[in-house]
């Protein structure tokens, strides 16, 4: 691979991206959604601060300004904005070249195929970085205008959320790029990308969890099967169902790895809303409701503790774009140009 040629392709592709109407539209939508989410997030922050001062349960730690990003990460992950932007940036990168007959024109020039697909990928990632950076700068502007100034540590955490958000979009972008290599037309590529996204975000986590539980664990144990007729005691049912639920959670946890959106939320929640994370994942919401004092001795998770806790998910988060791009790369290198 030649760096000059790669730079030439990346520059041209990046220029194509940022001068397109599609990019402008995505940028406007993204900044609008983030701006509105930021305003709502600031309200949430103020409310959480008030509740914390009142000593309300549920606010274990003093809310940080990062709570502003809770609504933003929900919009990007849970509501699929990140996936939509990633797909929109990459679904026609190769298929458009095929449709416009430019694929032969460009590949008949002295350059290697991998330089073309790598150049396109770099440009797409840079375009996504530009979009996300612009959106996050809008959020920071809103916060500063309202008078909320993050401290240096919070700035670093905001940077980490930005990086994770970019990774989420890159995951969808590489999936779309892969679809673009396989499909003959851009519309087919878009449909293929949406189908795979739907499968990975919704079908596999839900159906995979149910199906996996049924296959690996069998039907959930029924309390009536453990009732002792003589004593009326349900014996060790509680232990068995607890064990069953734990195993079922592990299966769901595994199939959720297929959903970048789910992994994204799992990584960002401890940063944006640590109290919620501790209550729901470490203590358990039911246990906390019964014994709120359990949270007294728990320290606020640091970035290192989050990384330690979530390293598998972070690896998976990096793995998906690598897998999608790898498949796209191999297929493109073998593609028939006739």
């Amino acid at each position, binding site marked *: 691979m030649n760096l000059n*040629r790669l730079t*030439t392709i990346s520059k*041209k592709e990046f220029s*194509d991206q940022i*001068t*397109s109407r599609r990019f402008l539209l995505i940028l406007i939508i993204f900044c609008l959604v983030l701006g509105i989410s930021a305003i709502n997030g600031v309200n949430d922050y103020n409310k959480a601060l008030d509740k914390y001062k009142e000593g309300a349960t549920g606010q274990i730690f003093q809310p940080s300004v990062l709570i502003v990003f809770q609504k933003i990460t929900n919009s990007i992950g849970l509501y699929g904005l990140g996936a939509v932007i990633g797909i929109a940036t990459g679904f026609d990168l190769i298929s458009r*070249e095929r449709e*416009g*007959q*430019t*694929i*032969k*024109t*460009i*590949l*008949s*020039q*002295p*350059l*290697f195929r991998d330089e073309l697909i790598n150049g396109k990928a770099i440009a797409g990632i840079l375009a996504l970085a530009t979009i996300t950076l612009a959106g996050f700068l809008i959020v920071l502007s809103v916060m500063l205008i309202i008078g909320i100034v993050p401290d240096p540590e919070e700035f670093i955490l905001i940077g980490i959320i930005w990086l994770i958000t970019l990774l989420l979009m890159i995951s969808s972008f590489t999936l779309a790029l892969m679809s673009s290599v396989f499909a003959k037309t851009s519309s087919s590529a878009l449909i293929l990308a949406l189908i795979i996204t739907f499968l990975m975000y919704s079908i596999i986590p839900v159906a995979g969890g149910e199906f996996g539980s049924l296959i690996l664990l069998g039907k959930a144990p029924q309390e009536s099967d453990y009732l002792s007729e003589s004593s009326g005691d349900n014996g060790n049912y509680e232990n068995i169902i607890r064990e069953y639920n734990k195993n079922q959670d592990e299966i769901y946890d595994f199939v959720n790895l297929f959903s970048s959106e789910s992994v994204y939320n799992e990584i960002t929640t401890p940063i944006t809303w640590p109290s919620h994370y501790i209550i729901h994942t470490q203590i358990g919401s039911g246990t906390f409701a019964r014994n709120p004092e359990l949270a007294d001795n728990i320290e606020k998770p640091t970035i290192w503790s989050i990384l330690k806790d979530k390293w598998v998910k972070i690896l998976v988060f990096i793995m998906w774009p690598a897998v999608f791009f790898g498949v796209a790369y191999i297929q493109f290198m073998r593609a*028939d*140009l*006739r």
Partner: protein
Amino acid sequence: MITTLNLTKEYNGKKAVDNLNLEVVEGEVFGFLGPNGAGKSTTILMLTGMIEPTSGTCMVNGVNVALDPLKGKEILGYLPEDVGFYKNLTGRENLDYIGKFYPMTTTEREERIEVLLQKVALRDVTQKVGEYSRGMNQRLGLALALLNDPDVIILDEPTANLDPEGVLRYREIIKELAAEGKTIFICSHILSEVRAVCNTLGIMSQGRLVARGSVEEVENELIIQSRTPQKIVIKAINPAVYEAIRSISNPDLIAINQTPAGIEVEVRQDIRAEIARELDGRSRGITEMYLERPGLEELFLKVYRREQG
């Protein structure tokens, strides 16, 4: 300049190109003909280093294109069939982007683009390629093929989409390039066009080269292969000429007919000299005698159908 040796390309066990041995020498304007699926495009893709041969070699100006495709692409000029350009860029911007892949300085590239746009009459066109007509697109394609000032130029259907004026300009450019000693490889379906600019021809059918030589040699070869009779037309004001011709005995003579156009003599090969000799002294009143050969298209179709059949 272009040499292929036992060049073969298989797709799923089917040979698209089958042991192609072809040599195109420096300065030759070579027409590469064949029906759809004959293996022309596959051959071109191998010559341009865009696909690897299954076996055999193809050399362009001493470069083994399969082993060093980048070098091959650097010395070749290629106009793909239905050439595509980036629609959001102008013609100049398209050439500038593509020119960056060749070893040229910015000044050299800009000067070269200026000359080429002038050559294909697109110098003053400032609109984006998306607004180009098909003919303009094709002319830009020709400029693209000449961008690196190559010694070997491969043109795939170069006159497709060109208007008559464009075709004339294209012929002039080919003549200029031929005069400069460039080797030109033209792949086309428009046989008359090939005939107009090429001095040699090659015909592909079912992955094989079925005829190769000068235009006349290939025509003769096709006449033999197709077993198509030729026609000698004799126009005479003296009715006795018809009787005199009827008396000629020659194994290549098939039939003699009197038609309003004149006397039509169907022959296996050109026997005008023999006829003139036989009629010596009895040829008074003959105003015209010429050979009518079947067109290249007709011959090509007949041979192709024979190959298919």
